[in-house]
């Protein structure tokens, strides 16, 4: 176990607000939420390389415009590295074996490196990276309070058909506020167990029973810490007169300006283009531009 393995909260970028004061931060939170939802939807529904790459490029562009430190954004990828490695291994082992017409670059026993597998690895990796960056970026450029207000405003019309939008927005806020706290608690439990020579299990172990034995002493305290902190929160909310489902107004009112509307139009047009433009495939682009 190295010292780096304890630094969970540093690598969990979801729920962390980075106040750089950039124009992205100053945008109307409702506009940011709508564009983020559009990007989520587009990323979920595109499966080819070019639109996935374009979506990833836009997410990087938003991070640069928001003056988010590149190292901090990339640190959010660290927990996902085992998943990405696994994706590569399994694609090499299983993809392409049953697909006729593939160009095989290397074959030995069950290992089959071919063009279909390599493309699937590239697109799969780009999608996972894009989803992680997008989720982190949402909270890096918006405070949880802004996010709550944005959710309430954007989904407000659904309240007329009985959807408890305010309560769901509050639930999301509580979840995002608790993520850094629980990550710190988890670090504390890990250090406490390591100091008692306990085996702690964030390492990938191909024997699930062994992994379970080392992880359960972390997982059960994590749940109990969360539930006990929840008790305190219920008491605090009720002491302040909060009642779930009650009608309430709020002090903060948002007014979208020309720049907000421009970002909305450009953002949604980009998402629509990702979904509906017949993008060429990578081999077609290669044949047209690189090897004519």
């Amino acid at each position, binding site marked *: 176990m190295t010292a780096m393995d304890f630094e969970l909260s540093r690598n969990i970028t979801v729920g962390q607000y980075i106040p750089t004061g950039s124009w992205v931060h100053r945008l109307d939170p409702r506009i940011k939420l709508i564009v983020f939802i559009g990007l989520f939807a587009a990323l979920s529904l595109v499966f080819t390389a070019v639109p996935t790459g374009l979506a990833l490029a836009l997410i990087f562009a938003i991070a640069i415009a928001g003056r988010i430190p590149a190292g901090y954004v990339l640190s959010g990828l660290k927990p996902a590295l085992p998943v990405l490695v696994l994706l590569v291994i399994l694609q090499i082992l299983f993809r392409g074996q049953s697909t006729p017409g593939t160009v095989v670059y290397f074959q030995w026993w069950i290992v089959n490196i071919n063009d279909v597998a390599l493309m699937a690895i590239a697109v799969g990796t780009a999608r996972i990276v894009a989803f992680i960056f997008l989720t982190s970026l949402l909270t890096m450029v918006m405070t949880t309070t802004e996010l709550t207000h944005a959710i309430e405003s954007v989904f407000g019309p659904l309240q007329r058909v009985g959807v408890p939008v305010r309560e769901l927005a509050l639930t999301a806020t509580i*979840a995002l506020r608790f993520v850094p706290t629980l990550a710190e608690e988890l670090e504390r439990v890990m250090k406490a167990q390591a100091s008692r020579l306990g085996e702690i299990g964030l390492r990938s172990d191909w024997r699930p029973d062994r992994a379970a034995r080392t992880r359960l002493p972390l*997982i059960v305290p994590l749940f109990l810490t969360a539930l006990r902190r*929840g008790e305190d929160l219920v008491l605090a909310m009720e002491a302040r007169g909060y009642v779930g489902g009650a009608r309430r107004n709020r002090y903060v009112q948002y007014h979208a300006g020309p720049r907000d509307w421009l970002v909305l139009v450009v953002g949604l047009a980009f998402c629509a283009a990702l979904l509906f433009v017949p993008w060429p495939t990578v081999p077609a682009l290669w044949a047209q531009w690189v090897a004519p």
Partner: protein
Amino acid sequence: MSLQSSNEGPFSTRNIVLAGVLLAVALVLSLTGLGYFPVPNVAQQATIMHVPAIVGAVLGGPVVGLIVNLVFSFDSYTRFVGGFQWPNAIAPILTLFVSRLAIGVVAWLVYRALKGLNEIVALASAGAAGALANTAFVLGFAISFGVLPVEVIPVVLPQVAFEAILGAVVTVAVVAAYKRLAVGRGGSSV
């Protein structure tokens, strides 16, 4: 003391907070990788990501279970959508997203049916049933869409058993400790 509230219903203060903190637990399990166990088969990973939803369903009812499961649904979608060949855009959404939403409801139904018999048995059964519902719905959709062959069922059976046992163990450990239920002998034998 358990999460007490003066207001009742699926969106009482208690249930809002319960769903919020369990969503946070699910996010931490996902972001740290603690919720996934690598296994060398076609399913790629065994998971306990369904346990927050099961705990939520047992403590707060099916609506809390459903909300908490949104994290697992979204997380599994982002992780696994790139790993398989899908026949259309709806197939991965149904297989990886919608199918997971049943976990909390199934766990709550099993817990409610067995609670009068024995609380610990009800908790263990709810944990195992939630895990089995997860696998059954995901595999069912994947096989019906032709993403996985029927022959994959015997391959993933050991993993299904592992997830069900782990679901039962964690659910009992968490809920019993939280509700101060007596499990086993208790205390020291010295």
